[in-house]
């Protein structure tokens, strides 16, 4: 019973970090309809900025975190401007965007191999990892609770932004029909920049927590593949889907690790992907809108 509860908390915590990554990825997908493989790069950029600032300016996590979010957001906007916008302006074929994003992912990873070196780095101990006891039932770490709470706060803020602001409304409209959103007087390029900034900043939050969980290295972005899987399970382009898919994935991983074997984690994850694609390719919340003529 104790182990189960503990693994559920750990699973939700891991899933919530996936959710931060998957939601940004899904947001970009919903607007531009391509899988942005450079998304993992944004997470790595966020992680290294946080690491760099903590090492140079001391241990103020709020400062380091804030700059890390802003930095990764700006990097995401620049990636879009440099690599995707020139393609968008010439063609509607999203396959070219996909290929460009694979290129950008390799570019970002290798920039960090050159600049920061390929070795594993541990973030200074700014995020508490002390064990916390739940009334004697289960033990989990403060870190797990903190990452869960942070994810809830950031995803809640995103939801508020999308539901309550003018640009949030425009993003929801553009997710359905980007061209028509442009007809409403929305500066489409600015909207896309905003979406990339948000996606980059959320990825940075995920990046910081993942760096604490697993240490930081240039290939850390590869973990985004789990967020892709979560987004597919939840339904590509659907934000609630990305969150639910991520939580399912996190739980599945941790329960497998706790009750079967931690080596089986990835097997279970990718089996779930295959099963989703076989049984319900649109995912849990995938949309198939029928058009009225």
């Amino acid at each position, binding site marked *: 019973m104790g182990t189960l509860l503990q693994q559920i908390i750990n699973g939700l915590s891991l899933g919530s970090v996936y959710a931060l990554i998957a939601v940004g990825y899904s947001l970009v997908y919903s607007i531009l309809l391509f899988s942005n493989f450079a998304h993992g790069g944004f997470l790595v950029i966020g992680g290294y900025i946080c690491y760099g600032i903590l090492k140079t300016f001391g241990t103020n996590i709020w400062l380091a975190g804030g700059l890390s979010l802003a930095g990764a957001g700006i990097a995401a906007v620049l990636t879009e401007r440099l690599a995707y916008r020139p393609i968008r302006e010439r063609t509607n074929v999203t396959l070219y965007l996909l290929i460009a994003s694979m290129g950008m992912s390799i570019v970002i990873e290798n920039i960090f191999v050159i600049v920061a070196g390929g070795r594993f780095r541990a973030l200074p101990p700014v995020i508490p990892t002390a064990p916390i006891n739940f009334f004697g039932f289960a033990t989990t770490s403060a870190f797990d609770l903190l990452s869960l709470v942070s994810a809830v706060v950031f995803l809640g803020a995103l939801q508020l932004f999308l539901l309550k602001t*003018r640009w949030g*409304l*425009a993003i*929801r*409209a553009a997710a*359905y*029909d980007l*061209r*028509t*959103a*442009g*007809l*409403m*007087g*929305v*500066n*489409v390029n600015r909207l896309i920049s905003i979406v990339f900034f948000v996606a980059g900043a959320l990825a940075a939050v995920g990046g910081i927590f993942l760096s604490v969980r697993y240490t930081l290295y240039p290939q850390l972005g590869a973990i985004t593949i789990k967020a892709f899987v979560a987004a597919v399970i939840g339904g590509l382009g659907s934000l609630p889907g990305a969150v639910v898919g991520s939580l399912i994935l996190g739980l599945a991983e941790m329960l497998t690790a706790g009750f079967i074997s931690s080596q089986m984690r990835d097997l279970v994850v990718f089996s779930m992907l295959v099963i989703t694609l076989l049984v319900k390719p649109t995912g849990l919340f995938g*949309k198939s*809108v029928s058009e*009225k*003529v």
Partner: protein
Amino acid sequence: MTEVCGEKTVLLEVRDLHVSYGAIKALTGVSLKVCEGEIVCVIGSNGAGKSTLMNAIMAMVRREKGEVILSGKPLEAKSFRVVQQGVSLSPEGRKVFAPLSVLENLRMGAFSRGADKGVEEDLEWVFSLFPRLKERIDQYAGTLSGGEQQMLAIGRALMARPRVLLLDEPSLGLAPIIIKDIFRELRRINNEGVTILLVEQNARQALLLSHRGYVLQTGQIVQEGPSADLLANADIKAAYLGGGHGAGKTTKALS
């Protein structure tokens, strides 16, 4: 030709507009004028270039040559700027945002106006024009009937407070009785001071509604005049109004 507007001022002018899609020329030198307070229609068959004309005015497709002028100022080459300058479009096929509510669709229409206080008043105005929309204010646009979606698309374009309202095939796919309703509302909108330029395949309804008309055929204006004259014109009757033997066949009718 030069004096179509007489005493009134020319509000929107399209000058020698050319548009191509790759090697295919969609518009080859279209010119037309819309006077302040008028309803002007452009009729033409499928593929004549009607939607291209609308999209070119809105800068949704590139204007290869020629320009569009709104009371003396050229319309810019970016769609969002065109909307800010005072032209909005209710697009072909309505294109309402299906997963957004009726109210959210209307608010999207007012996007370019930011936090303008007039938006709330204009919402009431649109609801007075289309009371059905008010009844369905919180419903998803995707659940509306075709006619209601058309009303929403028009209302959404009106929310931009345009100086010229563009309408692309507002009758498309609708039952005749609903078309009548919608066209009656268009007249009312015009009476309240909105200048309208519409393109239509439903030539009879469009000519009955409008003050002046243009006939677009394979990317060129082949005829123009007061709508009453066009309605009475034998060639146009044969080609576009279902009269004579050539109903729907327009290729040679006007050449």
